[in-house]
């Protein structure tokens, strides 16, 4: 099927991400969909490497590499500066990692959502601080190995999509770099809406998740097809839409394909499966609730 998107590369070559990187794949898709009339903010993360060292550049749109915890506040500053100059056409897009979003940048993000700033915020979730090694963030899933959770992370992953949904932002979605059309459509959708848009992009990371780099597309698809990471949208904090019906594969298919989960035993898999099924039920309930309204 021919894509409706301009698939010309909108990143110049030489992004310097690892081979098989899901984050750079997500970035490329997001930038395709946001098109050229956009200004971006990147904060320290693997994305900061991808945009290239001075004086080289990989982004074809303007980009400001701001301070780690300022993706949302920097984007809001740009958006207000554009509005002050009478420009409500140029999209402003914040691009940050999961650490920059769910931990250190969370306050600024919540503030921007509260003020309903006219920005698109994309969190590229590779489920740990990868740029500084592989350290655990609040987006690292339970039991995953990282360099700072050598026995597996004891705590659960923070559910950012629901948290942003609870801010009742006009648009909020989960997406995955391995579902290109779904991701691009969500960015296009976000671009049409005024106010705060949040898109959470699961971005498989062969380096940190410990799987062969040729498997990125499979890993991302398994995350979704096992219901471990459902793809959906929330409008105005109320209207839920599931955008991909998963095949309902067992979670072990996803987890055991990755070195960071290789220590999991059957009991762990059962517990996780139970949790995933429960979460899915809840999500479908929410979706049907807004259908019946």
């Amino acid at each position, binding site marked *: 099927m021919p894509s409706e998107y301009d698939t010309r590369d909108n990143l110049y070559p030489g992004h310097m991400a690892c081979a098989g990187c899901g984050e750079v794949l997500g970035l490329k898709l997001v930038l395709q969909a946001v098109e050229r009339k956009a200004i971006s903010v990147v904060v320290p993360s693997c994305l900061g490497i991808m945009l290239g060292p001075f004086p080289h550049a990989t982004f074809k749109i303007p980009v400001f590499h*701001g301070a780690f915890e300022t993706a949302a506040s920097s984007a809001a500053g740009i958006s207000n500066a554009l509005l002050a100059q009478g420009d409500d056409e140029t999209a402003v897009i914040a691009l940050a990692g999961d650490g920059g979003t769910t931990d250190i940048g969370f306050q600024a993000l919540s503030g921007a959502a509260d003020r309903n700033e006219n920005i698109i915020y994309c969190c590229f979730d590779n489920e740990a601080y990868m740029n500084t090694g592989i350290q655990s963030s609040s987006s690292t899933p339970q039991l995953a190995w990282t360099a700072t959770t050598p026995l597996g992370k004891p705590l659960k992953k923070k559910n950012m999509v629901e948290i942003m949904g609870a801010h009742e932002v006009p648009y909020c979605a989960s997406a995955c770099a391995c579902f290109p059309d779904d991701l691009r459509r969500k960015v296009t959708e976000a671009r049409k809406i005024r106010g705060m848009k949040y898109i959470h992009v699961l971005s498989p990371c062969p380096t940190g998740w410990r799987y062969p780099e040729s498997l990125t597309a499979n890993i991302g698809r398994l995350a979704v097809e096992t219901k471990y990471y459902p793809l959906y949208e929330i409008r105005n904090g109320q209207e839920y839409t599931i955008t991909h019906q998963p095949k309902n594969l067992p979670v072990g298919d996803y987890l055991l394909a990755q070195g960071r989960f290789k220590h999991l035993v059957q009991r762990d898999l059962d517990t996780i499966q139970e949790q995933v099924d429960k979460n899915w039920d809840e999500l479908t309930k929410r979706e049907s609730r807004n259908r019946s309204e």
Partner: protein
Amino acid sequence: MRMFLTGNHAAAYGARLARPQVIAAYPITPQSPIYEKLSEWDGQGVLGARMMRVESEHSAMAACISASLTGVRTFTATASQGLALMHELLHFASGMRVPIVLVNVNRSMAGPWSFWSEQTDSLSQRDTGWLQFYVADNQEALDTVIQAFKISETVLLPTIVVLEAFYISHFMEPVEVPDQRLIDEFLPPFEPPFKLDTDNPASFCQVVSQSQYAEFRIQRHMAMEDALEVAEVVDREYRERFGRGYGLLECYRLEDADTVLVTAATIGSTARVTIDALREEGRKVGMVRIRLFRPFPKAKLIEALNHAKKIAVIDRNLSPGQEGVFCEELKSALYSRINGIPVFGFVLGLGGTNVSPLHIRKVFDIAEKMNDAPLKPIVNIEDEDALGI
């Protein structure tokens, strides 16, 4: 128009007259009246800027930086804890060469909690690459905010204009508020050489190599050095247009002065009264009030102090384990240029305690009586025995 204004409101008028396009702010005592005044004008539709009521000073500064990079004039105001929270981004702002103007109302840093005047908050930001002005009254606050935009936009570095808590922020004084038309003639719209622009895409603030970084740092320093002259030129032009100028230093009754007080901000305006009284008594005393702290006007200070026999510095701040910051900076400026003048460092007025004309008289007395300047700052001016005089 002549108005009766607090220092905070004078600063707010200065900001409004400069026509910033984006203002981002967060409340903190004693800065809040600036934020409220700007919001009031916003509510009346006369502000002309987009007000961002952000969730922290950190976000206020982040928004000012990126808005400035997008080509608009930006303003913010804060105090103590808020300024400290911005610290990381203050480096960022000067590194990105964005001419933000920030009003900081000097307030003591916690802990313990205190809300009164002390300069340690802004002086702690000494090395962030921002220009720093310390003002002595409400009129100077308004005028300096306007001057700051012009200086900053010329050298492409941000400026902090420092008002003292309560002594300026909440005191009311008659203030001449200039005509908007005249300010518009003085301060043309902001035209940055580069900006985030979809017609001319560029990457800002990328990772650089060691030597590139060194080059950026040196350029920032050179811009600071240029700012010394630019600040003088702008002040002169302001004086020509509005009849008020301040210089980088205020030199008060320096002619034939043997003992010279060096200080900053409102202690300077109090000192004028003391010096007048002492002069009546025939004592040869004078004052240099440091108005511009960064860049530090070394040559001007050396020139002003060339004939002094003794120098006394009063600092309303303290770098623990060292001394008052103005004293330290002054000594470093004088070293190897003017030899043999003892510099007596006094640390008074911490936590907003009052520095009265009587205190200042005592400072002159001590400096005149003592021969050698102690290595440690003098923090107690009442105990003459301890001072050995």
